[in-house]
């Protein structure tokens, strides 16, 4: 691959902490390798800021392999930037041109309050998971043999596809209602598709939906932006499945 270098202008959201007012700051960054990832470009910006004895930009990141879900960022008005099915850490600077101006903002949602600069608090997702995103089995290891219940490959594959959600929050950030239904739908679906998860399916969907509402996430109006921006391509079908599960559980005697 032929690598080259580009110069970019960055417009970055800066906010000292949760209580202060933020604003967009402008930075010039030159000699950015097109082989760099977007976060490596931000590393370069921070190195420049540190050398100028200024405060570096805070942003969440960790694995840089597109799987931990730490990285976020609204880039030029899109969650995780212009490339579909790509996390910010996997977005590379070859997607940009010399002279580009790039806007970088944090996730925008009431349920994800800003902590500093581009870092937001996504613990609402953890609380939704804690309300029902599990199978209630003890970790004793004394369960039945793993092959005791055959699971049709299609169900296993669909459950896996739903389970590949990385919990980054792009779905919430892209939704005009700040809805978390793609995230919650994916979790509900994973378990609803597997025999192990069916046992407490009614209770699970009720609890998770209740917690989701309490956290202040909005409702789904079928715009589909979440699916478009999801870096893992989680399908809207999961929302439909969650709705079915929810309706079904409303009719159930046990909730």
């Amino acid at each position: 691959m032929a690598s080259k270098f580009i110069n970019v202008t960055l417009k970055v959201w800066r906010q000292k902490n949760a209580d202060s007012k933020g604003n967009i700051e402008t930075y010039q960054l030159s000699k950015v390798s097109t082989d760099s990832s977007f976060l490596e470009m931000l590393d370069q910006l921070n190195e420049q800021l540190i050398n100028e004895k200024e405060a570096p930009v805070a942003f969440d990141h960790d694995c840089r392999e597109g799987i931990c879900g730490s990285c976020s960022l609204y880039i030029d008005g899109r969650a995780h930037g212009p490339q579909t099915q790509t996390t910010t850490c996997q977005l590379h600077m070859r997607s940009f041109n010399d002279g580009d101006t790039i806007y970088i903002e944090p996730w925008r949602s009431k349920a994800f309050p800003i902590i500093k600069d581009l870092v937001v608090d996504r613990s609402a997702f953890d609380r939704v998971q804690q309300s029902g995103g599990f199978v209630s089995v003890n970790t004793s290891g004394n369960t039945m043999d793993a092959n005791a219940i055959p699971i049709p490959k299609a169900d296993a594959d669909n459950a896996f596809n739903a389970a590949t959600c990385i919990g980054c929050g792009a779905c919430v950030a892209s939704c005009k209602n700040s809805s978390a239904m793609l995230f919650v739908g994916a979790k509900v679906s994973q378990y609803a598709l597997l025999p192990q998860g069916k046992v407490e399916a009614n209770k699970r969907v009720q609890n998770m939906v209740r917690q989701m509402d309490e956290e202040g996430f909005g409702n789904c109006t079928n715009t589909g932006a979440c699916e478009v921006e999801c870096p893992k391509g989680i399908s809207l079908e999961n929302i439909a499945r969650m709705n079915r599960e929810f309706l079904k559980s409303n009719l159930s005697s046990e909730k």
Partner: protein
Amino acid sequence: MSILDSKIPEGPIDQKWTNHKNQMKLVAPNNRPKIDVIVVGTGLAGASAAASLGEMGYNVKSFCFQDSPRRAHSIAAQGGINAAKNYQNDGDSTYRLFYDTIKGGDYRSRESNVYRLAEVSANIIDQCVAQGVPFAREYGGLLDNRSFGGVQVRRTFYAAGQTGQQLLLGAYSALSRQIGLGRVKMYNRHEMMDIVKVEGKARGIIARNLVTGKLERHSAHAVVIASGGYGNVYFLSTNAMGSNVSAAWKIHKKGALFANPCYVQIHPTCIPVHGTNQSKLTLMSESLRNSGRIWVPKKKEDADAIRNGQLKPTQIVEEDRDYYLERRYPAFGNLVPRDVASRAAKERCDEGFGIEANDTNEGVYLDFASEIKSKGKQVAYAQGDHNPNEDTTIRLGKKWVEEKYGNLFQMYQQITDENPYETPMKIYPAVHYTMGGVWVDYNLQSTIPGCFVAGEANFSDHGANRLGASALMQGLADGYFVLPYTIANYLSNEIRTGSISTESKEFEEAEMEVAESISSLMEVKGDKSVDHFHKRLGLIMWNKVGMSRSELGLKSAIEEIKVLREEFYKDVFIPGESNEMNAELEKAMRVADLLELGQLMAVDALNRNESCGGHFREEYQDEEGETLRDDKKFKYVSAWEYKDREATNSALHKEDLKYEAIKIAERNYK
């Protein structure tokens, strides 16, 4: 007598664990809520331990530096998890998994621990399936398996190229359930800064709230460290950016011995280095070696032409390719263990056959063309087309490959901008895993009473080289099935202790010490960033304490690290304040520890005058370049006792390794 007592239970190897479990003391359910346990880290080992202990009824406090426990770096493990289920009817057994692991570790691990690992491996799969982990399945609805390096059976369970993610989310769901029930209290965005000892026992930790910068005191009757490995000492590695040694290093400084620090796994299949601003390296799962063939050109001029862009790999005809693993190791071929594959790649590149146009020309091909053809034919045949044309074969073959490895291929393309379905992947070894770690006895207890260490953070199971798909197995084994028993045995003596105050002088002193170390770093106000030092440390480590080591190189590394460390304390610049979210301060604290650890790794490597597993000393190799072990002199675990910042002052303790169930032999994959 040495201070090392490995506490290996009596009896034949296959009964040790059962006997030990039968004899260990228990804590009655009504007493458990009176006992607090701290777990640091929420990867596979930490999350599974915290979930299990919470479920048993203890009061658990769980800590992670990430914004959520689900982000721990176990999530990035790709290929799979081993278990001796023998679902594939190819002769697997507990003994065979045990044997493969000991041999894979080049006879440098503790037999009893490894046997226990193999013994509980099957339960892990049962447990995970019960938790709703969506493993890959065959059309009959049963679990599928693949093969990994260093073994001749198919015992690896997987979920596409995201097995770590699925297993971690399983453990995270179990942990979440306990958090929801109030049995575990979660402290995310918290970093352990030190351990607190009272009367010699681990009694709590000092943690820093990474959002507010406040130091907090947390007490407990036992502390579990499950903070992962130390591969980031090389700066560039497949570890996450935040992965660090600090929790393990802090307990080392307070009396826990650190074992085999020089055993580092360099993984053969990673995307080669591309530039100076690169922040990390990306792994391409070992599972790809099931389907990919590794080669370099036979002719140096072809390698030159490829690097200059005059030739494409697809233009090199079959006769001009050197499938060097298949050539050197016909019995295992492309599926030799990681250390062997990595050294072989280095050997070819050192000889001038590397194909990557980076500073060092380091890169080899991992080629899927043969597999695409053969699988395409098989699929066509199964669909009733017994004479498929080339287009059909290749189309079906690519689809088969996509199903197996789709996410890896996609990731490769995003990073390199090349399509691995059309042209071979370029790969090169990179730092991936550390077999060394905190020394623990059979109960996973360190030399600090009450301080237990699990997962990659301990040293116990993988010897000098870890086999693929065994890290996930060990993490979950430790957390789900070992610690819950052994920690209870320890805690049975704590039921009368009552709650532990954080107002004692020990907590006060520990907090003050942490506060001072933070302010002294903040006050340096030098001119260079933390990364500047970290990158320089990484280069020293990679060049001199990396894939091949020599006496001369190691001696110079020890000196260079010392000089670098002194410079760090004089010239590092940390912007901002300590009482706010400050990523640079977090990094500086971690790099300060890496600057001590790196030196100890070199000291350990210098002491070990032999080659074994991932530790390759140039002076100790046979005429074919294979490792030469010295069982007479080095069949022991090196466990280092901290004295001061200067690792050359550390004291060496030796745990002799006894092989009773396995006959120690030359490690041969030919």
